[in-house]
């Protein structure tokens, strides 16, 4: 099934589509969704985690737990850059998109 269009969001996807992050500014911080498609044997799992991060510290912990950062280092570099930009935007404007 197709995924919805994400106007106003920033999206970072690994080259093979296995892991995708969607980020947007929210009232309380940066809203991040992580989607992971995992096919192991005959069973496929699609997992999505959504949370709002008020600061970079908790986001860094979140990323540090993620082993996919070793498989897709460029993807995670882009992810961190987008997060840093959004958190700075939020801090400078204190307004959601």
């Amino acid at each position, binding site marked *: *099934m197709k995924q919805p269009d994400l106007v106003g969001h920033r999206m970072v996807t690994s080259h093979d589509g296995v892991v995708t992050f969607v980020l*947007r500014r929210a009232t309380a911080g940066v809203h991040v969704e992580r989607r992971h498609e995992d096919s192991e044997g005959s069973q496929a799992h*699609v997992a999505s*985690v959504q949370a*709002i991060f008020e600061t970079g510290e908790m986001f860094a912990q*979140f990323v540090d737990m993620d082993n996919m950062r070793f498989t897709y280092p460029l993807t995670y570099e882009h992810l961190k850059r987008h997060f840093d930009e959004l958190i700075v935007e939020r801090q400078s404007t204190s307004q959601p998109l």
Partner: protein
Amino acid sequence: MNSSSSGNQHRSLYEVVGATGFASLALEVIQRAPKAGDAAEMLEILAAANHVFGAEMAVFVSFIRDDESRESFRFLVAGNPAWCIAYQQNGWYANDAWLLYAATNSEPVSDTAIPLRTRWQRAARALATQHGAVSAYVVPAPASGGLSRLGLLVLGSAQSQYFDSPAAGTIKVFARSLAMEIHEWWVRQIRKEIIASNRITDDDLRLLALERRGLRTKQIADELNVSPASVDSRFQRLNAKFNRPNRRATANLAAEYGLIEPCGPLN
């Protein structure tokens, strides 16, 4: 991460529910849930629930089995979501004691009432403890109609035995209502996303609902006042959109994702 629960540090659940205005605040959070405009707003509602119930973590999990080979899990986390990553990396879904409980029970309980029978279940529980859920309140949000999908709200506290208090009987009603409201909201959100992104029309939904009711091609054609060939053609198109091998699987998937009622048309 939202730390609105900091004012509840060291208060027992008994003190939290006994505080003036607890019921009003809890109802207010519950009433906000169906009106959440998006997931970010729902996360803020979960953070508010943390504050009201004196918890440090609130997680809502939605599980849907697309078919025998594909399952989807969606987590909304108000609190520290780092444990979700470790949980997913370990692939604990099939063994999760709380999900298994929610699949067959509707009663909210303290996590201490749910036995941990395997080392994987104990490991998953230890992970939650490491990330702040020393005590947890497990609140199923079941679906009806023989569907696989289920929802589960888990409230976590850093205080040992927080939810083992007799006061948990007071929050049970509120937590259960909140879990059901969030689950129904989420099903509506998923439904809207799928319909919009796959351009599903009302006629498509009616077609799927008739299939779900077990009608044959000729009966469906009569209901819709079209030819049987047209029914077949439309199902082929829908099967391709949903990436399902046949119309029954497509209709079942549509029911799982809330596009149609489990056993009839959605009006």
